[in-house]
């Protein structure tokens, strides 16, 4: 300590303070996230029903079954990808469009912002049950008053329609969240750049694509990342709205994992599936963030 220069000492102090402040969070994350995660990686190499006191180590058997002999899981995987793709596209486009609208000077924009945000406060499980009611009893009453066939379609029972029902409900729920991010992004766009472009004679459309969009790219990165990982992990909306049905046509990977572990009591196999899901989200997210980050510009 004696030999330290005042500068070094200051740096050392700062590092120590930093470590001390982050230590509680680090410990909490280690105990509640990292250690359980490593334990479940271990479980994925075992045959265990989640109840017996002994776990049998079976090496890569679970992964072998997963990749070679589990059609249901891959069907769930396909549906999850379709749902993710749909929700990433729809939610981001809608949110961006709405954000542009609500950032301009239209009447009642504060009330509208609040209205779009409200569904996001309610738990998805509740949302699922509410929409289940709307799709069945609600639509039936609509049909009786309007006579429109649209309301008599089996929105949750028809294999071809149920995808759109699920997509609609999840977009309706999460729209507000992305709206907030985009509005915040739009508000960081410097006025002088906009004004400069107006003087240069750029129209609304050109201005949006050439000035605004590149400047809010960081908001887009965050939103797409978030909607991507949420889409891949989709569970609650499916659980309460369709419970994976009809058949297994709306079973997502997360629901499949839950059932493997808790309904069929195959804990080892379920954790193997969740390790694969984790890797998938990790790879896709890294890829997506890299791609989007490269397009961000700084003012």
């Amino acid at each position, binding site marked *: 300590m004696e030999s330290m220069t005042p500068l070094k000492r200051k740096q050392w102090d700062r590092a120590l303070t930093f470590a001390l402040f982050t230590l509680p969070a680090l410990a909490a994350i280690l105990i509640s996230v990292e250690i359980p995660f490593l334990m479940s990686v271990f479980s994925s190499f075992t*045959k265990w*029903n*989640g*109840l*017996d*006191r002994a776990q049998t180590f079976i090496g890569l058997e679970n992964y072998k079954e997963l990749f070679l002999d589990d059609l*249901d899981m891959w069907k769930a995987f396909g549906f999850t990808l379709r749902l993710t793709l749909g929700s990433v596209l729809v939610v981001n486009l809608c949110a961006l469009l709405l954000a542009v609208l609500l950032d301009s000077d239209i009447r009642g924009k504060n009330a509208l912002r609040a209205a779009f945000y409200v569904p996001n406060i309610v738990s998805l499980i509740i949302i699922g049950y509410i929409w289940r009611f709307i*799709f*069945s009893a609600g639509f039936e009453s609509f049909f009786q008053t309007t006579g429109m066939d649209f309301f*008599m379609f*089996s929105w*949750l*029972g*028809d*294999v071809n329609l149920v995808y759109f029902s699920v997509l609609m409900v999840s977009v309706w729920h999460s729209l507000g969240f992305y709206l907030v991010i985009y509005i915040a992004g739009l508000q960081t766009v410097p006025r002088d750049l906009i004004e400069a472009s107006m003087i240069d004679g750029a129209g609304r459309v050109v201005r949006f694509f050439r000035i605004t969009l590149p400047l809010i790219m960081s908001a887009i990165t965050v939103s797409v990342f978030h909607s991507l990982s949420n889409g891949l992990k989709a569970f609650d909306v499916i659980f309460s709205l369709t*419970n*994976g*049905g*009809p*058949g*297994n*046509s709306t*079973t997502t990977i997360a629901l499949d994992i*839950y*059932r493997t572990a*808790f*309904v*069929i*009591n*195959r804990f080892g*196999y379920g954790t193997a599936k969740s390790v694969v899901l984790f890797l998938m989200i990790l790879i896709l997210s890294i890829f997506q963030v890299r791609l989007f980050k490269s397009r961000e510009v700084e003012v």
Partner: protein
Amino acid sequence: MKKMLFVVMAVLLAFSPLFAAGQQEQAAGPVTLNVLFYSPELAEQYNDMVAAYKAETGVTLDITVLQTDYRSVLTSRLNSGDVPDIFMSSAYADNSTYKDYVYDLTNEDFIKKIEPSALQGVTVDGKVLGYPFLVQSHSFIYNKKVFADNGITTLPKTLADFEAVSKKLQANGVQPFATGFKEFWVLPQTAWQAIANVPAENYGGYENFVAKLNAGELKFKDIPQMSQVFDLLDLIKKYGGPKPNESDFNDQTSSLATGKVAMIHQGNWAEDSIRKTNPEVEIGFLVGPTGNNAATAGIMFDSNQTIRIAKDGKNLDAALDWLRWLTTSEYGRNWIPGKVKQLSPIIGAAAPDSQIAKETSALLASGTPGYPWFYQMFPTGTEQQLGAILQGYCAGITNRAQTLDALDSAYAKIAKAAQ
């Protein structure tokens, strides 16, 4: 900073005798039993029983009641060491699922007060591993007024009878069935009943039948009578209204109670919901068709819901005392028939004031077959998986051959994992 720390310590010190006192009191005070049950429709009756037990003995039952995620909550509580003193499960396959945790009741005096037939589902190698607390039945429930209003006097027994009745009802503008296809547990109950006579007649009994399935020696696609299952599901779907795949338990019970539909496939547990919607309703029990043979058409009658006692719990004796009270005390003996209003497995128990329970007893007394819930012998987890596959058939995703293949492959996987 130091001052702040000092204050915090001082406050903690000041309160510590309080905490200590609180803990001591808990240890010395009366026992509290930790209970995890399902069937939230019985929550009122559970609480009534808890209050009665507390009043008589001073013992508290801290009871949690769940439904859809019951199994997952129980599993995570068991493997995290937070084992409830008393919990519930199904009979049959669940005997082995929870074998590491349950207490062997064979030598308890109160077990002798239970009907031996009710103990079949919880007995493994001569050991009684659970307490059957009520006897349930499922089949088709019908609205008597709707049947009478539409001039249906002979009750249907075969598939052809059911088709004829449905046609007549449909022609009169009444929806014959509310399907319940959205509930994964309604489908297997409906489906397996259609071949309930087959294991005993063709495969040397239920245990043998399930053992063959588990060993892979028997496949569903090799059972010719599986066509009876598909025929019945097709019929219910055809006459099940415009959105057959969206009907759930609530839709079934409320539609039947209001007379919007004539029949539902449900069990005696549905009666409470039906009568809550319409207290005046008169309902009856129909046999489930096993193809076109009227003689084998019966009802599914078993004691499936089982109370389990944790063997390593520190309140083991108190939990056993509670079961003894439930079997022998005046309140306990009357609880199932009088409050829960279902059939009790206790020998000499009173008959409940329930239309379905009465019809069940009458049907069985008249020689109608009462089949065990043999699908509960299938390995744990098959109910949901096979239910989803049958749901896929009803939604038109798979045809009969594909459905049979899917059933076989799902069953084989679960059976292999359960070994």
